[in-house]
């Protein structure tokens, strides 16, 4: 399917006057995938995606900036997310507090999220407040720095540090994610640090850092604006031009070069945490958004764990009852991905045995492949999941902007759906053999003083209260 490609074009090639092009009727899609949308670009490079749905008198606005923690540099980790907080402190024409008043204060909601790859800001408002929502978003895209000062930055810095304490440091197993990222990716790799960043880096961010970051990344040519819900298209187009049309285009952006990662051998780590029960994590580097193998990896994950008949769940949680919980998922970022296994033992069962049992099941799947029924069960929920996602204006706005931002195609959900449903047993067997190799990270999180509860403790390197930029045991 041809859609206008909008990904950050240099100024000289920008279409003058923008392009207005409706998504062509999708001949190949079933009725299930009925999510009509229009998309066009403004002269300043802003991609606009509109999808009308009058079922509920609300509208969701999602502004998606193509910047995340992978655009940070070592020593300034956590910056993209800190910046997300700064975006809620008011802008040139919007005093602090008004954003909440015009969203939550009128019965709506707002929030922002930061990932490795993108930062996204969204609000859902009663449909009669759409114009003010667009005004708010345009003002912080165009005029944030007019209202920024060091005091605001410092206040948000403290809040983000509290967020880190709450979601990482004070959370049992909360540091596992960043330990795994440090160990999976080489020290300067853009995916080697966690989105939340380190305490010392958060302290180091200067006002100038914030301003430079904003000028480069928070420009319309690096943004995707999705509007979904109860609106009149002609009116919305006029408002978008009115509020976003004169926000100046930014400079061309150099994206970080992201090399795929393979581990030559197994890295075994153990971390002592304030937990009562140990937990085992196994992480394999896999693929990101751009590789179709991610669909087979998703199916593989649900064949291995989740429902009670999934292979590892059935063997360890139900039959042997050596595990209290087993979780497996493929985490897909834009350029890279990870396949992650987490297991919590029942009392009296050792992580070493859990690991060996899970490995044996994975090896069997690698040699025999899954059954046709396993494939069918893993994909049967796709239709319901998709149709349910159409019930939320915000969910639709997110889906459309992810497609536009990562694939240059707001209608990428159709491809995603089709490719998931066409995964075969052969595909699953192939990706299991290709990615679930000995090149992996095995992390045991154990209660303080119980290093012997690790899986194969004698082969595991202890991760101490490390300098977050250079994990011990990373090598």
């Amino acid at each position, binding site marked *: 399917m041809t859609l206008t490609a909008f990904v950050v074009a240099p100024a000289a090639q920008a279409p003058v006057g923008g392009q207005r092009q409706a998504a062509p009727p999708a001949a190949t899609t079933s009725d299930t995938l009925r999510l009509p949308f229009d998309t066009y670009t403004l002269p300043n490079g802003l991609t606009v995606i509109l999808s009308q749905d009058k079922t*509920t008198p609300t509208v969701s606005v999602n502004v998606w900036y193509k910047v995340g923690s992978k655009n940070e540099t070592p020593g300034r980790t956590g910056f993209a997310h800190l910046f997300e907080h700064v975006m809620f402190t008011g802008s040139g024409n919007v005093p602090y507090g008004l954003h*909440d008043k*015009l969203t939550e204060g009128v019965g709506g909601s707002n929030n922002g999220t930061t990932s490795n790859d993108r930062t996204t800001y969204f609000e*859902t408002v009663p449909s009669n407040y759409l114009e003010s929502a667009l005004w708010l978003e345009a003002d912080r895209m165009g005029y944030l720095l007019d209202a920024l000062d060091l005091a605001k930055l410092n206040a948000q810095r403290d809040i983000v540090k*509290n967020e880190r304490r709450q979601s990482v440091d004070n959370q049992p197993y909360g540091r596992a994610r960043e330990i795994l990222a440090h160990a999976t990716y080489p020290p300067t790799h853009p995916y080697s640090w966690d989105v939340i960043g380190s305490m010392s880096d958060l302290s180091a961010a200067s006002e100038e850092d914030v301003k430079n970051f904003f000028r480069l990344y928070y420009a319309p040519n690096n943004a995707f604006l999705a509007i979904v819900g109860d609106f009149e298209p002609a009116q919305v187009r006029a408002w978008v031009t009115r509020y976003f049309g*004169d926000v100046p285009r930014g400079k061309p952006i150099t994206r970080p070069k992201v090399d795929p990662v393979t581990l030559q051998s197994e890295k075994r780590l153990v971390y002592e945490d304030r937990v009562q029960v140990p937990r085992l994590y196994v992480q394999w580097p896999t693929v990101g958004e751009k590789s179709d193998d991610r669909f087979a990896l998703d199916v593989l994950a649900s064949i291995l764990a989740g429902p009670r008949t999934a292979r590892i769940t059935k063997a360890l949680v139900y039959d042997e009852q050596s595990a209290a919980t087993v979780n497996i998922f493929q985490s897909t970022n834009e350029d890279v991905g990870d396949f992650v296994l987490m297991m919590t033992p029942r009392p009296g069962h050792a992580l070493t045995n859990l690991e060996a049992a899970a490995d044996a099941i994975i090896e069997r799947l690698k040699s025999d492949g899954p059954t046709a029924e396993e494939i069918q069960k893993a994909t049967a929920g*796709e239709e319901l999941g998709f149709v349910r996602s159409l019930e939320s204006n915000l969910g639709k706005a997110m889906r459309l902007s992810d497609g536009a931002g990562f694939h240059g195609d707001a209608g990428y959900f159709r491809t995603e759906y089709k490719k998931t449903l066409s995964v075969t047993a052969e595909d699953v067997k192939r990706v299991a053999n290709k990615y679930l190799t000995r090149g992996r990270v095995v992390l045991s999180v154990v209660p303080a003083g119980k290093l012997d509860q690790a899986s194969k403790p004698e082969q595991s390197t202890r991760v101490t209260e490390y300098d977050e930029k250079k994990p011990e045991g990373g090598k």
Partner: protein
Amino acid sequence: MTGRIVLVIALGLSLTASAQQGLDRKKVPPAGPMPVLRVPAWTKSALANGADLIVSEKHDLPLVSLSITFLGGDNQFEPAGRQGVASLTAALLSEGTKTRNGDALSNALQLLGTTVTSNVGGETGSVGFVSTTAKFGATLDILSDMLLNSTFPAAGLERLRGQRLVALTQARAQPGSIANRVFPRIVFGSNHPYGRIVTEESLKAITRDDIVAFHKAYYQPGRALITVVGDTTLAAAKPVVEKALAGWTRGGERPAFNYPSVAEPRSTTIFLVDKPGAAQSTFAIGRPGPPRSTPDYYALQVMNTILGGMFQSRLNANIREEKGYSYGVNSGFGYGKGPGAFRAGGDIVTAKSDAALIEFMKELRGIVGSRPVTDEELTTAKDALVQRLPGTFASVNSINVAITTLWTQNLPDDYYQQYAKRIAAITKDDVLRVAKQYVTVDNLAIVIVGDRSVIEGPLKAAGIAPIVLYDIEGNPVVTQ
């Protein structure tokens, strides 16, 4: 310096461009006319066995949400010393029936692409699912099999018991979970249903006979409401429901919700639970509150929205946004059939525990009179509450919840149509009156779970209230 220059340039650009379009960016765009509230319609009916049936149509997507809701929960139906039996029974519905074992049930549901959820809470329980329209009948047949023909295999019970014991152990490492267990025990006492918690002892005491007895007593049509919401009609859904539940015979009645009275709260006290090394202190500050049926409900909603019910509420604006002591604090009421607690709190950075408590108390004192609610606060809170309503009817599940809530809480059919009028009637005097009555500052339990070695000294020095030490199970620590 550089920053200033750039700022001027940016401003200049904005003025030029805006002038061309005649756009004054300082001006807040006015809101359009408020959309008309469209409350979904529904039809009430009943099955021959006495269960209520409500069907609400929504045809824009091929989805149906069905749930069977039971009035009463573990507070009414769990025998003494068997806390956890209600939730275990709900989970055991997935473990096998007379004709399908647990794996067969799971496989059948996976192939239908859906899951049947089942739970029992304090005052209600439910089983239900969301399916595509095409899979509705087949999914309902499985739900019916689980509800009526479960065999409660002993092996399933032992496995679930083991998993829950691990979860309980893990909860002891989580400051938030500790506070959730300790706070109700302190506020209501362990003899009140609201103060009972699941313990290792109660989990270990439960037998298969307890499960069978609970199932028999609880899952009865006489206290059930069946709601079907989505791409169907009463004429289409009723025969399917009747056929699927044909074996469900009459029985059971709606329970009375007679709660013992709660002892008058003692004078404000800090209950400190030591969690060595904690990076944050979890605060839970509160006291017993009114039931959902209180005529003060609307005034309380407005009051709490101002105090701690939104991002820019007084508590969060001060303690998170202005002081930076937390990632977020809030307040709310439990609103059940009994005296659901008022609770304010959040996770506070360890070193600021004393300073944050001073601010909490300042805001509580403020709402009960020292800082009167402004017209702007009142208007914003009312707007937020009223204009939020249309969004709650967006999905088949949320409509189902909206309808079921009216049934479980004995609210009138035109509740949603009347809601805006009720909220609009609330005055600043109402807000002050309910704050004084239900918040107070002299009878609060202040539960703080945190690193005692760091926070006890400063909390004592702050002089807010006497400190007593409790353990992570909510028992007083006996000191030698």
